[in-house]
């Protein structure tokens, strides 16, 4: 089951690469650099998926006290932080040639950076509690608080400052880019979400084996 998922993910990632380099057109002003978007945007969006799953799994854990739910939350936290981190890195690489700077404190960059440190804290909390049951409870609470904080962070940072080009996929009035960009983007998004699910499945299984070995 997990193995099939792995092959499926690999196939989707390969298709995404082909689409990004073969099908998607060369951007007129930015040139080939713009193709990093097909990694950058899916990474960030997949990390949001991870954080939402983390919050739901946390809630499920608090209600049912099922260690499997905690495993999903734990794994989602790790994969989500990794994806956001990579998303920020790819964004920087994209930003240097286009904006002329590695980093700028615009609204979306700042919100994503805040998310990154928030969930890094989540992983830190996990690492400092020895009792797995207590770690699961506390992290579930933090996971729920953090998820509810995401909209607050977005609004506050957006009001604080905005410079960024408006979101390219979901914005009022629908998508305005051509379908030659949309399809490669969607295929890559699917590939990265599959990658996230695959990582979580593997990691959760490992965590369960670890817990069983101790008990």
């Amino acid at each position: 089951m997990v193995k099939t998922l792995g092959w499926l993910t690999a196939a989707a990632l390969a298709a995404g690469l082909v689409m990004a380099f073969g099908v998607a057109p060369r951007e007129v002003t930015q040139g080939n650099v713009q193709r990093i978007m097909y990694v950058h945007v899916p990474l960030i969006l997949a990390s949001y998926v991870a954080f939402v799953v983390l919050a739901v799994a946390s809630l499920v854990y608090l209600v049912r006290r099922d260690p499997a739910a905690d495993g999903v939350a734990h794994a989602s936290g790790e994969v989500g932080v990794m994806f956001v981190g990579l998303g920020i890195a790819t964004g920087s690489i994209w930003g240097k040639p286009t904006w002329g700077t590695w980093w700028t404190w615009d609204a979306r960059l700042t919100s994503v950076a805040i998310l990154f440190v928030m969930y890094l804290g989540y992983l830190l909390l996990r690492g400092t509690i020895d009792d797995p049951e207590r770690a699961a409870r506390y992290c579930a609470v933090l996971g729920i608080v953090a998820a509810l904080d995401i909209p607050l962070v977005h609004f506050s940072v957006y009001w604080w400052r905005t410079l960024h080009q408006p979101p390219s996929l979901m914005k009022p009035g629908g998508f305005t880019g051509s379908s030659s960009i949309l399809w490669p983007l969607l295929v890559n998004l699917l590939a990265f979400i599959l990658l996230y699910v695959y990582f979580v499945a593997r990691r959760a299984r490992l965590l369960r084996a670890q817990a069983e070995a101790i008990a």
Partner: protein
Amino acid sequence: MSYARRALAVAWKDLAVERRSKETLNALVFFSLLLLFVFQFTLGGDRERLAAVLPGVLWLGFVLSALLALGRTFLVEREHDCWEGLLLAPGDKSAIYLGKLAGNLALMLVVEALVLGLFVVFFDIDLGRALPGLLVVVLLGTLGLAAVGTLFAAMTANVRARELLFPVLLLPVQIPVLLATVKATEALLLGEPLGAVGHWVKLLLAADVVYVVVSLLTFDVVLEA
């Protein structure tokens, strides 16, 4: 009825202990004085520059003293294992949270009033008409800070590297509150009415509601054996 009595007992206990030992309060007063020096040294005598950064600096002072005050709030429970007693108290644990929150809020407001007073005197600020609006913003901001701070302080009370972990967890989550309060304070000090910062006040209200409700609902889980 018993719920309110239990919450009150916790708040009364915390404030009585603080009133008698003055441990946290004394340290915080001293700390705010030191902050004043630090700000003066780093900002220099330039009035214009001072006016520009004042809202941020003021909230920096509030947040730093809040980190110190809130981080200690469960220390008193650890001294003679009182933590165990609270854990074993039958009934809804959120009463204990409410009591702790009320105690913390009172303590922080005292410290903030003091810091504000020091700023007015030493940096020669004219609060004037801004004061009522400022009170609203400070009250709402402090409630948000204390709500999450009390919850996280309970979570980190029995954790290794508590002093380190508490600010690391609290600060990112509190960024909406910080942005809202700093921006609103800035506008108010420039003489704008409270209505002009209505969106920030609404954000603070929303944040406070979310934080307090989530904390009330999850505190049982935190104070579980």
